[in-house]
């Protein structure tokens, strides 16, 4: 297993896709959150200002962190989904899949190693998003800061980022079964759309991919709180996605 993890780590750290997606998420998400927060605070008129105000779930740090939460719940699914799609789909697109047969390291181990490396990356990425968001808020002084007051909000951002990237691991199954990136990228878009629709129909809490987004707006008017069972569906879905992917790798043929 260690051999497979090392190899997957080398591939991931050299990947332009991963580096670009990571940098974009770490830098753009806090910046976009701050942008929406600033527009809302300025009290202007127009569609953007109205939308920005509608996004805010509070004043000061609560509003700023809430804005980043909401953007992270959607954008990180896309960003992480692209990385996961690359991680699994590239073996088919680059035609390296056959080279992973007839090795003492079974394919199921290779797939598991990919998930282990991706999970580590997801944790670091989520932590970086939370840290950079906090740092940016401090630099521009979005409001009075106290760790006791803002700590839970920062932890919530980390949790939303982690659950969103965790759900994106399921894209590995689509990239494997679809044998390439494109079906997986299509699935990212479809799932994101389905999550929006499920929220509109009021059933989003039971659609695991909508749960991080709902957690991000908890406290807003008219949004029912997400219950523990609905939250539990998130790791369950990610886990099922991982299991299904590993099983596919165990039995797949080269076609």
């Amino acid at each position, binding site marked *: 297993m260690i*051999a*497979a993890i*090392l*190899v997957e780590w*080398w*591939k991931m750290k*050299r*990947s*332009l896709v991963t580096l670009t997606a990571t940098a974009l998420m770490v830098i753009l998400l806090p910046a976009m959150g701050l942008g929406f927060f600033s527009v809302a605070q300025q009290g202007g008129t127009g569609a953007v200002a109205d939308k920005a105000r509608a996004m805010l779930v509070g004043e000061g740090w609560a509003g700023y962190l809430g804005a980043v939460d909401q953007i992270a719940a959607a954008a990180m699914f896309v960003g992480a989904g692209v990385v996961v799609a690359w991680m699994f789909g590239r073996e088919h697109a*680059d*035609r*390296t899949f*056959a*080279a*992973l*047969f*007839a*090795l*003492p*390291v*079974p394919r199921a181990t290779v797939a598991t190693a990919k998930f282990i490396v991706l999970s580590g990356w997801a944790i670091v990425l989520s932590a970086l998003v939370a840290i950079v968001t906090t740092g940016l808020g401090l630099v521009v002084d979005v409001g009075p800061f106290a760790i006791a007051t803002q700590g839970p909000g920062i932890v919530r951002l980390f949790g939303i980022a982690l659950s969103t990237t965790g759900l994106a691991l399921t894209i590995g199954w689509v990239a494997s079964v679809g044998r390439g990136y494109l079906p997986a990228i299509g699935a990212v878009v479809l799932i994101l759309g389905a999550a929006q629709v499920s929220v509109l129909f009021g059933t989003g809490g039971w659609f695991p991919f909508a749960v991080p987004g709902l957690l991000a707006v908890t406290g807003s008017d008219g949004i029912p709180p997400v219950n523990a069972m609905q939250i539990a569906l998130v790791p369950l879905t990610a886990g099922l996605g991982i299991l299904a992917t590993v099983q596919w790798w165990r039995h797949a*043929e*080269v076609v």
Partner: protein
Amino acid sequence: MGRPGLPPVAAQELVRWFDGDRAVDGLDLDVQAGEIHAVVGLNGAGKTTLMRLLLGMLRPDAGRACVLGYDATDMPPEGWTHVGHLIETPFAYPELTVHENIAAAGLLHGLDRSRLSDAIDDAVDRFGLERWRHRRARHLSLGNRQRLGLASALMHEPSVLILDEPANALDPAGVVFIRDLLLARKEQGTAILVSSHHLDELARVADRITVMHRGGRVGMLDPSGSELEKRFFALVFEADLAQEQAR
């Protein structure tokens, strides 16, 4: 290494269907230790499918595909430490350097990490890749990617070697290099199954040449004989004629 009773590579009444067509049709074939067995055939003859079956990349619909005495699909993982292969695309991740690709291949082939550094140096040297050692594989020429793939397939000194068109994209010096490489491995007792379209080249190295057509074996060519190309086409033509008459 391996179980007694079967040669290092053995296909027995092997069958594999694809969409209603028999890609491999009841094939029997073996490769002994210290032997180079070549398979030749037109495109779509079933050579690559045969090799994929022997490497567990495909499951047979009937018959057996055995390596080192085990059915390829039931081979214990450590058994594959004795097998090297290059099927169609070389083991060459474009974002990794030549050094990193060979290291990755070594790890995945079960090389101990304490031996890895020496094994990489040796492979880089033997396969003439020193100049490109720190170049990413995406920037290599096709020929050098093929050399990298061969280095990755051979760095762990396998006792069974399965190579599909190993001279693909290689320049004349590369073709000679492959020839010498195969003969050297043969001397060391490696069982080698190789496919190629270059009949003359195969005749220089192969102990036996099997002609495949429409998934089956339609005859053998004597590597020491003359006019291989003419005899190859005669075998293919006879097979087509026999099939027409059978309809």
